């Protein structure tokens, strides 16, 4: 009896994902511990009194595992059924934060419930993912139609817009991860190319003088027109398209980017971007990135050894338990450790994609791709930021960074996926 229940309880669980999850959370706990621990600290006392980040993280992990168990015991139909409801609830929470939220470290994105701070912007990733999966899997949706694409896009972008209003630009950026999911579900690849070109365009607009860029664009356009003059003869619309692209690029460089930089983006964001691009050398603005790079760089190939890092342990790196947690791994475990750490993430992402592709229901597949995309965006942005590849955008490293909201959200994201996967043999949804 007991045996049978045991089999039933863990039946269908994807052990590779489970193992990678455990490994990452434990690595995270170790890193938070390393960042905070001082020689002579009473570790048990600190754990019992929840007065250190690592002890609180341990508690949040406990809570997350309880939530995971509840999800595991829930029927998978529940998630499809309540997806839209949860999405509405999430939007409500975000709006609530706008009203009664609390400012923490310059962002107005926190709710305080019974002494605990909670960040709904984390939680709504889960809701949005569910809602998107629900929408894309519904029978009425034909994703080849523009209308459906616009609805799907707005599902992802509405929460992002509210989050930007809360001054959490970093987290809002993550919602663009859903476009990766939409690409998988049939969004034209051209969009990805356009998005990529857009990034290049923004970067060049920032790095090169706008008048020179305008001249360059004009020359390129002239050359393109010259070389495709035969095609243009065949169809007049081709010329119009080329001219439209030229006009858009020029307008973007000449007006939109300067406007965004002076009117839309906050001062600190502009500075961070400029620092990342090497345009500004203000030591105060570069401090975070510089200290983070020193910490990671000083790790060398084999690292300094666990708890031996001098940079992360002595507060040289700011926010080292949360956004800059990768510094601890880079410093203590070196290049070799970082490589292993990154391959854990790659393994997890590839496994999730593998799981997604074996789903029979569109809902489950879209949901799983959503999970992979969110984790990937977090990973890429977070680590790029610590090694000076991206501007300082405050988003956590999934499962590893200190933070209850983040850990709970990612645990729930993952376990809903595991539940769906366990039930993949059931009827189509």
């Amino acid at each position: 009896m007991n045996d049978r229940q045991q089999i039933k309880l863990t039946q269908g669980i994807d052990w590779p994902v489970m193992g990678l999850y455990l490994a990452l959370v434990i690595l995270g706990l170790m890193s938070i511990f390393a960042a905070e621990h001082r020689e002579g600290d009473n570790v048990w006392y600190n754990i019992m009194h929840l007065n250190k980040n690592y002890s609180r993280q341990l508690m949040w992990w406990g809570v997350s595992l309880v939530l995971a168990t509840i999800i595991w015991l829930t029927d998978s139909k529940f998630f499809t059924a309540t997806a839209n409801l949860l999405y509405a609830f999430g939007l409500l929470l975000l709006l609530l934060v706008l009203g009664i939220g609390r400012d923490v470290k310059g962002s107005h994105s926190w709710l305080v419930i019974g002494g605990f701070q909670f960040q709904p912007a984390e939680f709504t990733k889960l809701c949005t993912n569910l809602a998107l999966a629900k929408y894309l899997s519904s029978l009425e949706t034909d994703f080849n139609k523009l209308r459906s694409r616009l609805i799907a896009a707005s599902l992802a972008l509405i929460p992002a817009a509210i989050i930007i209003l809360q001054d959490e630009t970093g987290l809002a950026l993550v919602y663009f991860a859903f476009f990766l999911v939409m690409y998988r579900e049939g969004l034209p690849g051209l969009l990805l190319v356009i998005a990529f070109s857009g990034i290049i365009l923004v970067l060049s607009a920032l790095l090169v003088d706008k008048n020179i860029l305008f001249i360059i664009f004009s020359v390129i356009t002239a050359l393109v027109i010259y070389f495709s003059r035969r095609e243009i003869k065949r169809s007049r619309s081709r010329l119009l398209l080329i001219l439209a692209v030229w006009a858009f690029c020029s307008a973007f460089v000449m007006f939109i980017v300067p406007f965004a930089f002076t009117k839309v983006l906050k001062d600190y964001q502009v500075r961070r971007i400029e620092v990342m691009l090497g345009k500004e050398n203000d030591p105060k603005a570069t401090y975070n990135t510089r200290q983070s790079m020193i910490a990671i760089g000083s790790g060398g190939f084999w690292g300094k050894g666990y708890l031996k890092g001098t940079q992360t342990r002595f507060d040289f790196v700011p926010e080292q338990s949360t956004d800059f947690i990768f510094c601890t791994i880079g410093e203590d475990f070196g290049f070799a450790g970082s490589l292993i750490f990154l391959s854990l993430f790659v393994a997890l992402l590839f496994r999730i994609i593998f799981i997604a592709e074996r789903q029979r229901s569109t809902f489950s597949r879209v949901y799983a791709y959503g999970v992979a995309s969110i984790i990937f965006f977090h990973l890429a942005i977070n680590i790029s930021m610590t090694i000076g590849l991206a501007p300082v955008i405050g988003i956590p490293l999934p499962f590893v960074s200190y933070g209850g909201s983040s850990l709970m959200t990612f645990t729930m994201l993952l376990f809903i996926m595991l539940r769906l996967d366990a039930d993949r043999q059931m009827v189509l949804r």
Partner: protein
Amino acid sequence: MSVYNQPRRRVIQMIILGMVLLIVTRLFFLQVVEKKYSKLADANAVLRKVVYPSRGMIYDRKGRSVLRNDVMYDLVVTPASVKNIDTNYLCQILQIDREEFRKRIVTAIIKNGRVRQSVFAPLLPPDMFGKLQESMYLFQPGFELVQRQIRSYPYSAAANILGYIGEVSPQMLARPAYSAYQMGDYLGMTGLEKTYESVLMGTRGIQYLVKDNLNRPQGPYEKGEFDTAAIAGKNLRLSLDIDLQVLGERLMRNKIGSIVAIDPQTGGILTMVSSPTFDPNLLTGSYRTRNFSKLFVDTTKPLFNRATQATYPPGSAMKPLTALVALDEGVITPSFGYPCRGGYSGCGRFIRCTHSNPGHASNLRLAIANSCNAYFVHLYRMEVDASKFGGIRKGHQRWFEYMSSFGLGHRLGVDIPGEYSGYAIDTIGMNKRYNNQWNSCSELYVGMGQGAVVVTPLQMANAMCIIANRGYYYLPHFVESIDNDNGEMLAKYKERHTVAHVSDTSYSSVVLGMQDVVERGTGRAAMIEGITVCGKTGTAENNAIVNGVLKKLKDHSVFVAFAPRDNPKIAVAVIVENSGFGSTYAAPIASLIMEKYLNDTISVKRKQVVKNMLEYNTLDPVVREKSKLDSLNGATAKMTTDQILNIYFRN
């Protein structure tokens, strides 16, 4: 749909792999290729802290410590951490105004930056320190009290011997000899502190600490694996008798001159007074710099150690040495006599003699006792003209060699820096001075201690040791032993220098002559009850150029002596500048020093002598008026004669 989108799965996987590859490449350059980051990390996080050992102590011959290591406190500030403090209250304690407070903070930031400690108020006076320590919690963490070791001198004496310690200067740091020091370190600047710096300083420890982003030490680096322990400086044990030193400084007050007393059996210096002197405590503590400049410009030159740096004509004190040379060379015997009739006219010039009665120089003993000038200039001539040398040049050179071996004309090598060599003319010097045209008459005055021979008081005392020891001496020195040391530095002071091989009977005539000086002659003021003292007065003529005119100044009062006659324990040289006869000042002072040393007390009968010596004032009124020293000259100057007398003659 799923099947249709299979290539898109690959694209997404490629995007993930591409991104991760980009990160890995960047990490590879950051962690493996680029080496600067670990250096930057160490600069960030490792604090090299020098641990100062306590400086070696200095004890006198009876084991009394002549100085103490005291701890004073500097108030240091870390500008970046100064937040929310009661500035008014701090200013009130430090007795500065807000403007000064601001200025010091700005100076600190300019000097050392915002996150590093700088001295805000050095060497706090005790009352200030007390108040600060009580309320320190109000000013932390921006302000901290930091220990600083300084010297203090319970006897307020021996300033010129001990020397002082001061902060190492940037010019010194540039020299390789000072490579072990760093900015802000203290080291011996003069005196024994300088000579024995290498043993007194001990071995500095270095502690590597890890520090956090605000430069706060967080604990040992690598569990102290690279730390080196501080080893305390070694203690010096001196031959100096601090009581004798204090007495000497008191007796010499209001006089310019010096006292040097040596234990002839070891060469250990018992006392070395240079007057005027100052309280060594002036050059430590809160007001060091201000006091130093006052001392430096004072008209009486208190920083000038007259005992080793001033040179004087030895005067009649030279005569026993002239006798020794003649005896050693065998040109005379103790019974040699000179028919002096009140002067010497052998060289066409008349050299006056104090005595004119016939027979006052009929043998060596009598000649010394009566200090017959004629006798000794004649001895010099006999010596240099001796036929065995075959010429005046060789003869004079021989004389010069004697002077040299007696320690005259060159530095003896005492263990405090800045010793002067004095002068004794050699053959080359004679050739120069007289254009190669000279004979034994040219500088015959040197036989009686005038002319081309000048000596430091230390050399005079050392010469007395030669007589006292009947022919040998040890290099005079202060340090007898260094605790836990192999004694390499002291080896040269343990070496016996034998300079004359004269028979005991020859010696006894010199010694008896000197005994007569004290018992029947000019040195009667040096008599000590129950002790046979041998001495020689000197009245050194001297000139100085005043306003461009060579002017004869008042004679220096000189007295050299040793006691007891047999198996002598102390040899003394006393000189009181421009005061008059040797018998008036130098002799009583020398005898009081010898009595105090030999009997450990001064007989009550001599209270009046002590009183006279304390009250004699031979300072030039002009110099005295211009000197600011009286207010500085601590313990000795502030005490009245009666107070001092009460110390030595209780009841």
